[in-house]
């Protein structure tokens, strides 16, 4: 049971391709939407069209990239939820009623959703600030597919999408940042408002409408037409670097003014994570935030960011069940989660 996607759950061995400023930038993501010219779009698509699309694209991708195709309709709800928690598929995708499939590369950092709202959604995810490298990986596979099928393209509007909000480049680049310094110094609203003014969207880590928790923020472009892909990536990288600088200064201010108070908060968080016998995923997210801050500023030296990233993904409700290899009720999940975290951080109690 559950072996279908268990290989996706990160283990100590696995690390995603990494970029810079990892103590502040948790991960970067790029998504590119494409549709095939010959096949009706989502809303007018028949199930037979959807099946054709899967088989055409599958035969092309299999020639190029090592990985696995997962059939959405054959997946258990828990497995779908887990893919969502790993950020490999979108919330809209797991709710699809028609034939749909997702390709996941061997390393787990590239995925292609077939029959999301658009025929194809190529996606790349990596840790740290890494947009440029990620984009070349994503466009590499997008181009290969494009050599074999005709994308819906219009000279004026560029790549055509199901929804007008994705037309043009079809590209959305996101940077997930951990900004406790800005949260504590009450500067976060001002900085993020600035991002909104220049056409960026700011959200919680699980996309549109998701709550902002654990001082984690997602910055992404709102507009998809009227610029070259490279210049957009440059703009988001530049903006991210500006926010990183402000965050670093805020962290210095905090440590200069209230080092004892913050050291206390960090070590108490570590103590809870190392000792708890039952813990919710929400509490983990908040405690990890303090811990990440401690690792980032060098107060905690024996824990790596890789370990924290792994705990953040594995301790989500569906992933912890896959990690344990069994389906669990909420209370049992909280116990298994606490057990797993104690093991990863070294049980000291």
């Amino acid at each position, binding site marked *: 049971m559950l072996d279908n996607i268990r290989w996706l759950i990160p283990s100590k061995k696995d690390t995603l391709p990494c970029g810079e400023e990892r103590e502040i930038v948790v991960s970067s993501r790029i998504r590119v939407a494409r549709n095939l010219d010959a096949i009706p*779009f989502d809303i007018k698509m028949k199930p037979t069209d959807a099946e054709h699309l899967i088989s055409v694209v599958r035969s092309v991708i299999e020639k190029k990239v090592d990985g696995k195709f997962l059939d959405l309709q054959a997946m258990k709800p828990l497995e779908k939820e887990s893919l969502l928690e790993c950020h490999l598929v979108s919330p809209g995708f797991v709710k699809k009623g028609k034939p749909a499939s997702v390709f996941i590369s061997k390393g787990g950092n590239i995925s292609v959703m077939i029959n999301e709202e658009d025929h194809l959604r190529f996606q790349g995810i990596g840790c740290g600030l890494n947009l440029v490298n990620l984009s070349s990986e994503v466009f590499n596979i997008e181009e290969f597919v494009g050599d074999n099928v005709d*994308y819906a393209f219009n000279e004026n509007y560029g790549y055509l999408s199901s929804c007008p909000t994705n037309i043009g480049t079809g590209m959305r680049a996101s940077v997930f940042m951990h900004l406790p310094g800005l949260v504590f110094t009450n500067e976060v609203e001002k900085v993020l408002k600035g991002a909104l003014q220049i056409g960026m969207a700011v959200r919680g880590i699980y996309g549109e409408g998701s709550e902002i928790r654990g001082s984690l923020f997602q910055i992404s472009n709102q507009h998809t037409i009227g610029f*070259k892909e490279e210049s957009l990536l440059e703009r988001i990288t530049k903006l991210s670097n500006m926010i990183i600088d402000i965050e670093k200064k805020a962290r210095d201010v905090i440590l200069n003014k209230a080092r004892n108070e913050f050291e206390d908060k960090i070590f108490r968080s570590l103590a809870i994570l190392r000792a708890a016998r039952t813990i919710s995923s929400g509490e983990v997210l908040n405690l990890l935030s303090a811990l990440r801050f401690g690792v980032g500023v060098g107060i905690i030296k024996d824990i790596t960011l890789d370990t924290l990233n792994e705990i953040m993904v594995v301790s989500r409700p569906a992933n912890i069940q896959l990690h344990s290899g069994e389906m669990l009720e909420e209370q049992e999940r909280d116990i298994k989660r606490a057990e797993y975290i104690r093991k990863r951080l070294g049980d000291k109690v």
Partner: protein
Amino acid sequence: MLCDDCKNKPASIFFKEVLPDKTVELHLCEECASKRGLLVTKKLSPVEILHKLLKQQSAQDERVICPRCYMSLAEFKRVGRFGCSQCVATFDEHIKSLIKQIHQSDRHVGRKSTPGTKKGLEVYKLREELKKALEREAYEDAAKIRDKLKGYGIEDA
């Protein structure tokens, strides 16, 4: 420096406007800048703009119909999604300003699609033909179609 308008709060926004005959310089606090409309406090997201614009309907919308998927402009405005790659060209004059308002641009300058050899369309059509050939048990035709598909790298037909 205090705000030029309220003379009370510290100025955090520096505004400079160059007019033909003079230059206006203002030092304002966030609140007063907002009152003058110099700060957009709540910007609508592209999705919010789309929903707002789609409400602008006209009686003629039912008569503008995509020749390929038969989606009418009225239907597009109801669902906010295109039905096929032909819809955009069909609704062009009606959606130009919509796209511009959503994205502040209506001109693609990014990557271009490799000139089409219509492989996607061909493969799709061939698969349809193959299905029909198999339905009428015309196996010779089916074999020929399979060979063509192999030429496109499709081995599993």
